[in-house]
């Protein structure tokens, strides 16, 4: 009975995986809600990352999509059908876990065959599908090994193969690269990205690593305190973060919390800065990314640029670029990242102007808003 519904669902929804989340809330006891009312639309075939610090509600949201956590209120729809009360084993979603969750008592073959056997595939079908996907994932010839006999990266691939082999309508990934070292992580990121392009399934990925999110995703949803702060394409969120939280969480930012002097002038301390007419949140905070910041002697600031006085506290050469750490007039720290050949003129202790083009600045809503 159960298996028939799954098989039908598989054939009916293989290509489609559109998710709609409507006013989703999860409250544990009388504490502040873990997820405080989120709305999100995930297009079929999209790679979306739920990004946020720990405790921001991203994993709880993923578990509600998977069906392991029951929402307090709200709804989750798959291709327009309400999933909220559907048991996890009937959702037909592939899931990859942070610790892989491979069955230690089964061989690689049996692990990957597991979802197919639940769907009453014939022995021959199971064999073909499993061996095919293992070959494709570079695991050919390892089907008789146990998970404990594989390296971390290989285990991760088995977990992915197991989550994809039954053509799920959605793939959920809960920090699947979190346990790997940096180099392996990077190569698996690249594999994951091209895998997503190959299979064309909807991927929902959870991570707290903003670089990973930027590299992999079509769309990023930034979680903060149980809410989604912003949703957008990675470049869009980076260049125009919208909130101070996103500006700080997604990369680094020089932050200037001042006030509007007039519609085209933003004042901070003693400085007056030009602004384009269309950046106008009321309680705006100005942010500049370190790589858009340049450092000049006071007299050399290019005409039309905004600038601020600063003292250089450190110059670190990182290879092709160098990082200049600054102390700003309000005592807070800032940073500029410039090509190393430009940075040679700057020394520790120099009094300089940190300057940027008007187009490089962004206005965001402050933390309290």
């Amino acid at each position, binding site marked *: 009975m159960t298996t028939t519904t799954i098989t039908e669902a598989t054939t009916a929804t293989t290509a489609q995986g559109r998710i709609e989340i409507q006013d989703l809330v999860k409250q544990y006891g009388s504490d502040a809600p873990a997820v405080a009312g989120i709305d999100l639309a995930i297009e079929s075939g999209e790679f979306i990352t739920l990004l946020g610090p720990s405790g921001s509600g991203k994993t709880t949201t993923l578990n509600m999509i998977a069906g392991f956590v029951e929402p307090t209120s709200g709804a989750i729809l798959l291709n327009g059908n309400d999933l909220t009360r559907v048991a996890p*084993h009937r959702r*037909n979603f592939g*899931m990859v876990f942070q610790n892989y969750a491979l069955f230690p008592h089964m061989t690689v073959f049996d692990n990957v065959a597991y979802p197919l056997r639940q*769907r009453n595939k014939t022995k021959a079908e199971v064999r073909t599908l499993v061996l095919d996907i293992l070959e494709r994932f570079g695991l050919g010839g390892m089907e008789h090994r146990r998970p404990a006999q594989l390296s971390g990266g290989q285990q991760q691939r088995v977990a992915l193969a197991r989550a994809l082999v*039954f053509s799920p309508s959605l793939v959920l990934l809960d920090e699947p690269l979190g346990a790997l070292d940096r180099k392996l992580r990077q190569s698996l990121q690249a594999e994951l990205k091209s895998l997503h392009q190959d299979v064309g399934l909807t991927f929902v990925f959870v991570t707290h690593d903003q670089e990973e999110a930027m590299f992999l995703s079509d769309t990023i949803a930034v979680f903060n305190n149980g809410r989604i702060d912003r949703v957008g394409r990675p470049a869009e969120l980076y260049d125009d973060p919208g909130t101070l939280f996103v500006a700080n969480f997604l990369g680094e930012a020089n932050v200037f919390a001042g006030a509007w002097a007039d519609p085209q002038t933003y004042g901070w301390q003693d400085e007056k800065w030009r602004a384009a007419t269309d950046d106008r949140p009321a309680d705006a905070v100005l942010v500049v990314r370190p790589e858009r910041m340049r450092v000049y002697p006071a007299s050399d600031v290019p005409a039309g640029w905004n600038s601020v006085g600063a003292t250089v506290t450190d110059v670190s050469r990182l290879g092709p670029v160098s990082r200049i750490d600054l102390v700003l007039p309000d005592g807070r720290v800032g940073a500029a990242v410039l090509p190393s050949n430009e940075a040679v003129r700057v020394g520790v202790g120099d009094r300089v102007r940190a300057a940027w083009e008007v187009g490089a600045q962004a206005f965001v809503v402050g933390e309290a808003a």
Partner: protein
Amino acid sequence: MRTRPFLGVVVWLVAGFLTIPTLFLIPMSLSGGTTFQFPPDTWSLRWYENLVQASEWRDAVFVSLQVAAFATPLAVVIGTCAAFGLVRLGKRLRALGTAAFSAPLIVPNILIALALYGTFLRLGLSGTLLGLVLGQTALAVPFVLIAVLARLQGYDRSLTTAGLSLGATPATVFRTVTFPLILPGIVAGGVFAFVASFDELVIALLLQGPGNVTLPVQMFNAVVEAADPTISAASTVLVVVVSAVVLLVQFGWMNRKRQGAGGKA
């Protein structure tokens, strides 16, 4: 690993201290005389013959096997279910529940036996096989509970989650993932339960009646009444049966482990 000769010596000394007295039984049971002798003057199998032919001994062996055969599966089921329940409770409740279920290990057996005796007398269970089975089950449950609980606490719950996400029903996940992974705990618990029941004396002594005298009770009665070397033969049988069960499981298990890398210990 570094070898530690001193450790080896201590291990063998302790092992010898624990087992050598038992080993004296075997030659004594093979004595041809009617008294306990070590070493015996003459050798014979007459006491083993007596064990099989004398109806009180033969019946006692049969009763012991029967009681263990009922008490072991009963203890395994109760102990395993209890472990599953306890592992889902909060830390404090779990500790409390584990302590309650383990009480038979801590409370002196004679107290349990007296309490059972009083209760079973009223219920008409005293002197019956059922009463004996129930009493020994209570005693055996903690062995199963502790072994299964240890295994369950090492069980990664995300394996269950993974099974569900792959389309298996909760029952199928239990059958194909959870159960095989905790099976070693259940088997170990079952062996201890069997042994605990098979050689239990105090409860069996108080609950004895016609037709439910277990081997240890028969041995006790024999010592009190008229000691002859049949008791050595019976003891030897007891030791051999218990050791055989433990060793079989131990070695069978190790072989299985060697075949596959196996689960987490």
